């Protein structure tokens, strides 16, 4: 810890400083490339791997199976509905999942019986789910409405709290980057997009803004008296604030990501595909990217948006003048600075 603590100390005093604001062109370029890739990948792969909720169809889950041979399940389905192409997967230890196209009620019952005998399980170990093709679209539509409402309200909230719309804009830009990259990772990893994944996305948005607000609050604090100060330019103050909250950012990210990672890596092995796993991938990626986007995109963008303001330009000039003057005076006083 002493290493980490002194790391925090150095960041706080400015002894150690990462140039998040100054090197913004590099970060923006990386972000732009990542976003572009996130758009190209799904297009190139022919879209996302949509879950049954979006395709519509019937799904059977068989627990405590004697054999995990997928052909057994396929036969059970094709015996009832000739010519159908079921997707059979072993989703957890002894659980099989069989997805088919939309089935009639009596077909569902027959397949259920077929699966019961084929996998040698009892009646209540086979469950069926039917999903209408509009269900997923319905969830998505509502999620999009929710997204728009949330973004508008959050932008308003931040603009009111920070008294500047530029913070809102920067925070939203960071959030957008997070969103695109998270979606890109979904496309790349071929994870199914289910309503749970959509929940994960929405949470990531909230987390991303949450994280940005914490860092921006420190920026607000550091830059509140900037006009009267000649110590640092606006960009430098922003950079210092980001550095000073870096330990918090890392700690929070770690604490947030540990439970999510536990679900993703440990839970997924035990649980198989399901609500928790779908949700946790979105969260895992989103928290990582969200934290980074705050530091590398939102904060530098904010500094960049404001640095052209006449007051801040004047202030930057004063800082330079003082430095030029201080440099001369500081030469004899240099030992005191060590």
């Amino acid at each position, binding site marked *: 810890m002493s290493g980490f603590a002194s790391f925090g100390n150095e960041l706080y*005093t400015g002894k150690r400083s990462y140039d998040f604001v100054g090197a913004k062109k590099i970060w923006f370029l990386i972000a732009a490339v990542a976003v572009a890739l996130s758009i190209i990948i799904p297009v190139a792969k022919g879209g996302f791997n949509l879950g049954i909720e979006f395709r519509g169809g019937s799904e059977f889950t068989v627990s405590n199976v004697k054999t995990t041979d997928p052909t057994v399940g396929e036969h059970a389905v094709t015996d009832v509905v000739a010519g159908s192409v079921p997707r059979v997967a072993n989703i957890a230890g002894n659980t099989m999942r069989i997805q088919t196209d939309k089935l009639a009620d009596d077909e569902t019952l027959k397949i259920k019986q077929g699966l019961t005998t084929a996998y040698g399980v009892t009646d209540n170990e086979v469950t069926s789910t039917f999903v209408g093709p509009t269900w997923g679209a319905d969830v998505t539509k509502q999620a999009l409405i929710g997204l728009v409402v949330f973004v508008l309200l959050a932008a308003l909230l931040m603009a009111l709290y920070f008294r500047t719309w530029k913070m809102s804009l920067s925070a939203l830009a960071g959030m957008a980057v997070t969103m695109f990259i998270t979606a890109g990772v979904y496309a790349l990893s071929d994870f199914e997009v289910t309503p749970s994944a959509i929940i994960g996305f929405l949470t990531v948005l909230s987390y991303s803004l949450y994280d940005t607000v914490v860092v921006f609050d420190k920026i607000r604090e550091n830059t509140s008296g900037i006009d009267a100060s000649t110590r640092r330019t606006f960009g430098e103050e922003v950079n210092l604030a980001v550095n000073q909250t870096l330990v918090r950012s890392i700690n929070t990210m770690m604490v947030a990501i540990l439970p999510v990672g*536990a679900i993703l890596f440990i839970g997924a092995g035990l649980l198989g595909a399901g609500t928790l796993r779908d949700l946790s991938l979105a969260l895992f990626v989103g928290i990582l990217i969200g934290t980074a986007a705050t530091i590398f995109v939102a904060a530098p963008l904010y500094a960049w948006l404001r640095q052209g303001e006449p007051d801040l330009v004047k202030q930057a000039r004063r800082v330079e003048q003082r430095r030029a003057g201080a440099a001369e005076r500081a030469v004899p006083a240099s030992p005191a600075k060590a």
Partner: protein
Amino acid sequence: MARTGRKKPGLRVLVWLGVVLAALTAVLAGGTIAGQASWAPKLALDLEGGTQMILAPKVEGGSDINEQQLNQAVAIIRQRVDGSGVSEAEISTQSGRNVVVSLPGTPSAETRNLIQASADMNFRPVILNGDGAAVPPESQTPDAQLPKPTAAPANSSDTNWITPEIYKQFEALDCNSPQAENAQRSDPTKPLVTCEPATAKTPAIKYILGPVEVKGTNIVTSSFQLQQGAQGAVTNDWAVNIQFDAEGTAKFKDVTERLNQFYVAAGGESGTDPKSQFAIVLDDRVISAPRSLAVITDGRPQITGGFTEQTAKALSDQLRFGALPISFEIQSDQQISATLGGEQLRMGLLAGLIGLLLVVVYSLFQYRALGFVTIASLVVAGALTYLAIAILGWTENYRLSLAGVAGIIVAIGQTADSFIVYFERIRDELREGRGLVSAVENGWKRAKRTVLASKAVNLLAALVLYFVAVGNVRGFAFTLGLTAIADLIVVFMFTHPTLQLLAQTRFFGEGHKFSGLDPERLGAVPLYRGAGRIRTPEDRPVAVRGKNAGAAAEAERRMTIAERRLAEKQEQLAGSSKTSAKENK
């Protein structure tokens, strides 16, 4: 815990938190003892096992469903499910568009068909009525004496519709016990034997009804109002108005012309001929069977007699519903076996526990003894969340779903973040060279703003998700919002007061190296400056701090960090030894 001296500012708040927790526990305990609540939170279907159907009501003509129609749809489905003998069914609406039916176990194919059948309203004339109870077998009419049709029925009110089978069915029918619902609707061209279920005021009645004469779709609208007396003065009696369309008007005129004859023949007001009644039938069940007091030629009948405002509204709603028959489209039909549900819950909790354990380890690693404050805070937040969920399960029938569990697991991180923000601020203040007591107070003042602003974003997200989203998303949003509130309570009422108290202990106040607040380790400014005055933690004047902290903190706070640093810098540049004096306070 009873001591609330002035020297321990945090204690009073902690006592209050204890009171809140105890009160919530007492509420839950009371509910449990009374047999209404339970210690375990109620579980949703995906954890408990069962069947969940999500139905989208569709109004004929494709127009959007409004809230009133949705509520009627729920009422209709509830009646059907209750009628099918399924107990503990839950029917609720979702985002003003869908109806969610949750049933324990696996419903029969019949029940499923029944639930999704479209509602059906029509008007049939009454041929015969009787007391709701079944006629005991010994006193039932012998086969030989059963009424037999003598000719083909001339109209829908003709007693020739009554065949021996129908009469036997009528006698055997028991309207006092709940009726089984049939998915198959009756044939509108045939007579129907059915019940008018008992209400609070009226007993159950059974009927033999003639074939359908006017369809519910012929109703344009319906309203209810206080009845007007002969002089136009408003009386205290409620009345329900119906308005038919052209087809309905013509048909209803024919019906009332015939029925009114029976009414007049039976002696008007004092008469009791059932044939003067027409029955309003919804899903093959009589909801009202008024007598026809007059011939209605304008298609605007008014039903009066014995209504309260509530019953008049209920009938009027049902009639309006008949005007727009709602059918149901299955959006999703999910069966979860109890074993799978239990497994999911177990794994979810296990994953959550592992996650929590990792957080604990990380906190201790990062914050040493202060990590225990994080853990204790998480425990208190957990207790609050648990109590809230259990109590809401009792009062609001809130059920914890897998998505809800995920919300809680995710919340661990966001809750812990409040503490991290706070601790980091305290450390920052320590680095500025403050003593712990004033660092706690100042750090808190700064952290409070940040925590409030960031939690506002979280709550906003939870609220928007809750009100806009459908399905699983709601359960998730709910727990996310709940934990955000629990987090705020804990930060304000537990974490901060606890730190206030801990700041006065030797272990923390003197910055033991395992306290996580060790100024030396945190590189408090004096050591970095090399000003030479303060080398050992023991030199930090603990007692003086308390006295001047308030005023000094106030003066400090008026300066922004930038100003303060500027001041420090200038002092330093001036080479003055005041620097260390200032930091010595």
